[in-house]
Structures are given as structure tokens and as C-alpha cells.
């Protein structure tokens, strides 16, 4: 079935304006209809008491099985601290060439790093992270162009340095799927 839209599913509380702003940015980048939905999950099932974090791999699988369809690209939005077993934390993750990704706000705020708080950064970073994870679902791997949104970022400073857009090379790679 042809891809028809992108769905952003919020798990936990997100302001409506905040979500609409993100949806608009995603739409501008991928040119698909972007829907916003509210999801319900008992996050305690994904909580690892030893690490006091939430298992990103399990959450991704859950979102994929319960909320995704072949006509949709779905991104689960969280505000909890995500990890994968091998790494101390992640900003988000996605199935490469798949239909689902997840992203979390938790590690994107300045206060986690002892930097001056500035809320507008969080919104920009979250947009970039969501567009980045969606890029993986379209089959894009990490890009070496410093301004490309598909550049790998392991710190918030890395995210700040890149733009929220795909570079021409990455855009060309998905030109068959995205206008």
C-alpha cells in the first residue's frame, strides 16, 4: 500500500501548540499529511529499575506493533529517559527502512547538561530528532554533511549545529518516495 501520511503519537503530556508546530515542520520536510494522535501505554512495563530508564528498543517494538500500519510512518513521542542496553541513553531510534520511530524530549533540555535553560532550543531539537528518525524509516543512514538533519548527534550541541532539513544528497536518495 502506498504511503499516505505521517502520524505523530504523543505518549504523555505535550502542549497542543508544541505538537502542531512540530507537525508543521515535519510536513514541510517530507510533504506528507501529518496527523497528531494521543497514545496510551503503561510505561512502567518498559521501566528498568536498575537503570532508572525506559527501554527504547521495547518501546519501539510496542509502538510499531500497536500503532503503526504500512500506509503510515509513525513516530512515538515521549518525555521519559530512553536507553538501549548497550548505551547509556538515546535521543530516539527507528527501524531502518521500517515504518516506526520513537523520540524523547527528556535528554534535549539544557538543564540536563548544566547549561542555561532556553525552551525554544528544546522545540527545535525535538523537531530535528523526529525528522531524523523519520529519515531512518525512509532508509536514510547517517550523513557526514554537518548541516544535514541526518548527521549523527550524540550531544545536544551536535543537534544544535545541524539544520532541520535533509541535505540535497539525502533528499535525492528518497526522491522516489518523497516529493
Amino acid at each position, binding site marked *: 500500500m502506498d504511503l499516505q501520511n505521517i502520524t505523530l503519537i504523543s505518549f504523555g503530556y505535550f502542549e497542543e501548540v508544541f505538537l502542531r508546530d512540530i507537525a508543521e515542520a515535519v510536513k514541510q520536510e517530507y510533504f506528507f499529511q501529518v496527523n497528531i494522535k494521543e497514545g496510551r501505554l503503561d510505561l512502567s512495563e518498559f521501566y528498568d529499575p536498575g*537503570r532508572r530508564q525506559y527501554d527504547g*528498543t521495547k518501546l519501539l517494538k510496542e509502538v510499531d506493533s500497536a500503532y503503526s500500519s504500512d500506509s503510515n510512518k509513525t513516530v512515538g513521542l515521549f518525555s521519559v529517559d530512553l536507553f*538501549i542496553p*548497550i*548505551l*547509556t541513553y538515546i535521543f530516539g531510534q527507528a527501524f531502518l527502512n521500517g515504518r516506526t520511530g520513537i523520540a524523547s524530549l527528556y535528554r534535549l533540555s539544557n538543564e540536563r547538561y548544566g547549561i542555561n535553560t532556553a525552551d525554544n532550543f528544546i522545540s527545535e531539537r525535538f523537531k530535528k530528532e523526529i525528522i531524523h528518525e523519520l529519515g*531512518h524509516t525512509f532508509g536514510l*543512514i547517517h550523513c557526514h554533511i554537518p548541516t544535514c538533519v541526518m548527521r*549523527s548527534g550524540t*550531544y545536544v550541541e551536535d543537534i544544535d549545529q545541524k539544520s532541520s532539513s535533509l541535505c540535497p544528497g539525502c533528499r535525492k536518495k528518497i526522491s522516489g518516495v518523497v516529493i
Partner: protein
Amino acid sequence: MTKKISILIVDDEESVRDSLYSWFIEDGYRVENAENANKALTMLESDSFDIILADIKMPGMDGLEMLRRIKLLKTDSIVIIMTAFATVDTAVQALKDGAFDYVTKPFDPDDLSHLIRNATRQISLKEENENLKKKVVSLENVEDMIGSSDQMKKVLKDIESVAQSNSSVVITGESGTGKELVARAIHSNSTRKFFPLVSVHCGALTESLLESELFGHEKGAFTGAMFNRKGRFEMADNGTIFLDEIATISTKMQIDLLRVLESKKFIRVGGNKEISSDFRVICATNRDLKGMVEKGIFREDLYYRLNVVNIYVPPLRERIEDIPMLVDYFIKKYCTSMNLQPVSIDSAALKRLEEFNFPGNVRELENMIERAIVVGNGKKISLRDLPLEKSIISNSIESLEDLEKTHILQILNKYSWNISRAAKALKVDRVTLYNKISKYGLKSAD
């Protein structure tokens, strides 16, 4: 780097394998998984991986044991050991066993990126190194040995057949024929080529100096021995030692040398510790070693130990067809080193060179060409640029007529083809000289 880096993840925990797999796939690497060490080793038999990320604690064979087995396979894979239980001892052990790095799970995403970036840099450096080595080898091979005569073809064939073996070689031939070049060619085509070729000119050193030079010495071994010094045998470890003018060494040195060649062990002068060195011996001499053995001047046992293979380098006068090629080679060599436009050589000068008997062989020819480039007009080497006036009579001249022709040409060149002055020097009249020029078809080089 053009090639896609491949990574093998070895961990018994599925969640670890999956998360690393996803992480690396997003970075564009080729990634494979193995749930235990045995499976990883089986995979390595049929596939190669640039980087192996292995857990240290796995049921059955652990990561350290797997690391040791991977090293035995002599693969170029970079192994990074991961563990959830970090102790200094295991980290040190892993690094001692050849691991590239050691990380504690879970690790920071940035650390993982750095780790893989460092490993890929190491891989690209290794590749670059291999490529450079190949280039160096090809340069060494093409350069030195010049000639297309049958005699030179035989020498090249001998070099090719002996290079890959570890046998001792004696190179014989007159002075200046290029015996050291042959030794260098053997070394650079052997498996020892990336280790040193150490040359010792035995004829230039006294017995005691040669002993210290070959075996090294300890501090205080003799007056002036202020430091410990490695000997040439020690320096040639894994490489080749070239002993030039081997026939000049004393009887005592012959005995010492024989002992070293048999055991590949020696003691520094003034020392008491036995040192081992793995070297190949190539010797050269311009004397008849066999004859010296028969006369009792050279030890027979040493002769047979050294003379496993003999390569004879012919004198230049026995391969005059190589002279144009050698002249061309030396012109290019010296014009390049002097930063000059390449010069040519006129046919008369080349013909004279071909007639000359070259007692100093290729070395003499090389010196002649170098001198001719320095003193010449910068465009063409002519007879007057070649120091052949005082040369001994060419061995190709047998008849009186040839002798007369050569002498007249030499005088004409000496006086720049001024007929009057040449005739006066020859003590003949001008008409007679003109008749001789016409008879022998002599022409000015200019």
C-alpha cells in the same frame, strides 16, 4: 575510504546485539551478529570483518579466549572487547592479547562513535600503509638493474630464483660491476624486504674494528667504547646482511663468522650475553674465493657455508650492448639530480664508449657520464666531454689501421678539428691528414 566497513557483534544477549546492530546500520556499516564465540569463529572462516565487538562474558568460550583464537587466525580484524564487569586486570589482559580497545557496558553514545571512528582510522592507515609499501617495492624493482644483454638477463633470472629463498649468496665479479645492486635487488625481492639491508665493507676495516662493527660492543669493552653499541648482525635482524669484499677478512674473523652463520647467535665484544638474530647473508668479492680455498687462504667450511648460490656479474666489456641503455639511464639520473634538461649523446661519443674496455666497469661509465654532464655544453655529450684521451687502447683494436684511425680521431678532437694544428701534432702534412680523414671516413662530432 571507499570500502564499506564491516562489523561483527558477538554477544550472548539478544538485546545488546539488536541495539548495536540498529546503531551501526544507521551509520551505514555492514553488520553481522553472532550469539557466541564459536559461531563468530565459524563466520570468520568464510567471511572477514574489519571490526569485531565482542562481549567478554559469554557462556562457553569467553571473549578473551575468542580474542586469542582470532589472533591465531591472523586476520586483520580489529577486536574491541566489551563487558559489563570492568576490572583493570581483564582490561590489561585483553589489551595484552591484542585487543584494540576495551569498553564497559553500557557506554556513552559519543564514546561508541569515537571508538568506531578510531578503529576505522586505524583500518584506513593500514590500507594506506599497504598501498605505499606496494609502491615502494615497485620503485625498488624497476630502478637499479639496467641491461638487456643475455648476461644481464641471466643475472636477473638468478636474482629472481634466489630471492625468495633464505640461502646464502656469494656475488662475484670485478670491481664496479654492481655487486651491491644485485644484493639490494635480492633483498628487495625477498620476504625480508621490509626489514633492513645492512651493508658492511669488510675490506675497509681492521680486524678489531670489523669485530666490533659486526658483533657490537658493550660499554667499556675497549678504550673509546663509551656506550653499548649494536652490531651489524643485530641490526640486520629479520633482514639481510651484505658483506662486501668478504675475501679480505682475517683467519680469526673467518672462524667467528662461521660460528655466527651456523648458530645465528653471538656475543657483543666485552659482553657475556648471547644475542640471537635472524638474518640472511649475502657476500660479494672480486677475488677467486675457490682459488683462495685451494691455496688455504680462505676456510673451506666457510666457503661452502657462504657459497650456497653463486651469482656472477659480468664486466661491462662483456656486455657492450648494454652501454647505450646505461648511458641513457645515467644521463637521466644526473640531469634530474642536477636539475638540468636531459642532454643527449652524439653517436661518435657513444661509439667510443662502446669501444672502451672500462676497467672500472659500470661505476667508471657512471662517473664518466656525470663528469660529461658537468663539463659539457648542457645539450649534447660529445667526445671532448669524455675523459678518454689517456685511456688505454681499446681491446677491440687489433689492427694497425684501427689504431691509426683511433689515434688520428683523438688528435683531431683534441685540437677541435683544426687541421693545421692536428697535422702538426701528428707530424704529417695537411694533405696527408685530409687523405687519412677521407680514408677512414672521420667526421667531427659537432
